[in-house]
């Protein structure tokens, strides 16, 4: 059974590899911005900040509810339309074609991942013990100080596995950005595949590259977790009876 043309796959491997930087660029930037916004959203929800709480609840629901592809389209087709409108109304000369599709993708993925991450942080902050907050108050910390120095470091440890999930998911989700002209790993693979209908080969190439890429981050996250958890009485050591 030599359905798979390995030689072909191998020959085109480097070409697909060229999609990695774009993928990483979008994933890393969106992840970082997503963490920041996600954290802010989570705190607004936990502290039930009036009005803002309402708004972020709708935001999270909407962003999670709408398919990523739609979000991409809304930005990709909506911003040029908006620019046209502005140009017409105000006589400006904004040119949407000047904006790289990568920018649209980054905005879309940031909006998206922030919503998911807000839930991750909400879960992990809620899982920290209320006694920790009280202790911080008792030594005279403000809420912000207590969050920054005591609660969030503990919450971060709890969220690491989920952040890992999100980040790996994000790396793969960037393949959707092909829908707005960003040519990343999957896009490159599909373009190459078309000439000889070698989809099987090229999908495998893409899968291998994604795997290598994500594996690196899996290991990084695992190590980070091990390091950050060192203060805990672990439930996962020698407790199997």
């Amino acid at each position, binding site marked *: 059974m030599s359905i798979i*043309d390995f030689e072909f796959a191998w020959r085109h491997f480097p070409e697909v590899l060229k999609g990695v930087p774009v993928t990483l660029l979008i994933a890393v930037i969106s992840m970082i911005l997503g963490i920041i916004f996600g954290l802010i959203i989570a705190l607004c929800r936990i502290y039930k900040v009036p009005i803002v709480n309402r708004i972020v609840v709708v935001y999270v629901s909407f962003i999670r509810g709408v398919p990523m592809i739609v979000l991409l389209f809304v930005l990709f*087709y909506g911003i040029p339309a908006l620019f046209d409108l502005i140009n017409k109304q105000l006589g400006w000369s904004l040119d949407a074609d000047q904006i790289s599709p990568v920018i649209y993708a980054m905005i879309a993925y940031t909006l998206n991942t922030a919503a998911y991450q807000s839930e991750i942080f909400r879960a992990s902050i809620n899982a920290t013990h209320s006694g920790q907050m009280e202790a911080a108050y008792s030594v005279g910390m403000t809420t912000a100080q207590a969050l920054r120095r005591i609660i969030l470091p503990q919450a971060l440890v709890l969220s690491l596995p989920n952040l890992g999930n999100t980040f790996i998911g994000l790396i793969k989700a960037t393949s*959707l950005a092909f829908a707005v002209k960003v040519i990343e790993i999957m896009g490159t693979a*599909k373009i190459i595949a*078309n*000439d*000889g*209908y*070698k989809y099987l080969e090229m999908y495998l190439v893409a899968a291998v590259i994604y795997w290598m890429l994500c594996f690196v981050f899996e290991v990084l996250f695992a190590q980070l977790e091990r390091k950050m958890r060192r203060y805990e009485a672990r439930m996962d050591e020698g407790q199997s009876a």
Partner: protein
Amino acid sequence: TSSEKDGKKVVKVALSDEVNPPFLYTDENNNPIGYDMDYMKEIEKKLPEYKFEYLFGEEEANLVGVDTGKYTFAINWFFKNPERQKKFLFPEQEFGYSLTSLVTKKDRNDVKTLDDMVGKKFPPMAPSGGLRTILNSYNAQHPDHPLTLETIEHASNADNLKRVAEGKADAIFLNVTTFNEMQKQMKLNLKVSGIVSKEPIWVVFNKNETELAQKIDKATAELIGDGTLSKLSEKWFDVDFFKDLDYINQEGFKFE
């Protein structure tokens, strides 16, 4: 794939669910209809020893399925090239044609052939599909002055036509039938500025299905010979695309 049902050999036919009227699309109940299906009905009549099962799937998935033997063959407007022939079995006999054209604004006369598009702008195109293949092979043959192509996963023809009408792109490379259907609804300031080619379209078989491919080849040739396919062509496209291009240009399409 040699499973049998009611004493008949089962043939699994993959249909592209990125539908493509009037070749292949669906009715209200998502049943497949179109030129391709009518053609298959004629084939079924000719080959009663087989039982044909139709399965929808994304085009790329269908190709993987044919490749791995899950499907016997896939039908859509597949184009043939030597590289693909290495991987798949193409029959001898095409079952239809795709008429490709360049569409521009009505007031432009500078774009007739692909050569005219060198240095000009196309709207973004999908990486796969027959149209893309034609442009890719043009670029392969003209490495010194290639066409500039932008790629997007799922190109929206409607959106792309608008781009051309708004002057954001110079011309779109499109199937004439597609343009015609769309123009009926959209009524844009566009025209067909030139027919580029008449491309034969094929079904794509799994490498091992030589026997069936031969039978279908024979059947297709008969259907062309007795004019059945010409009639179907007229039913779906208002023109018999088995005739030559000049005839089609005169008879078939009265471009606005």
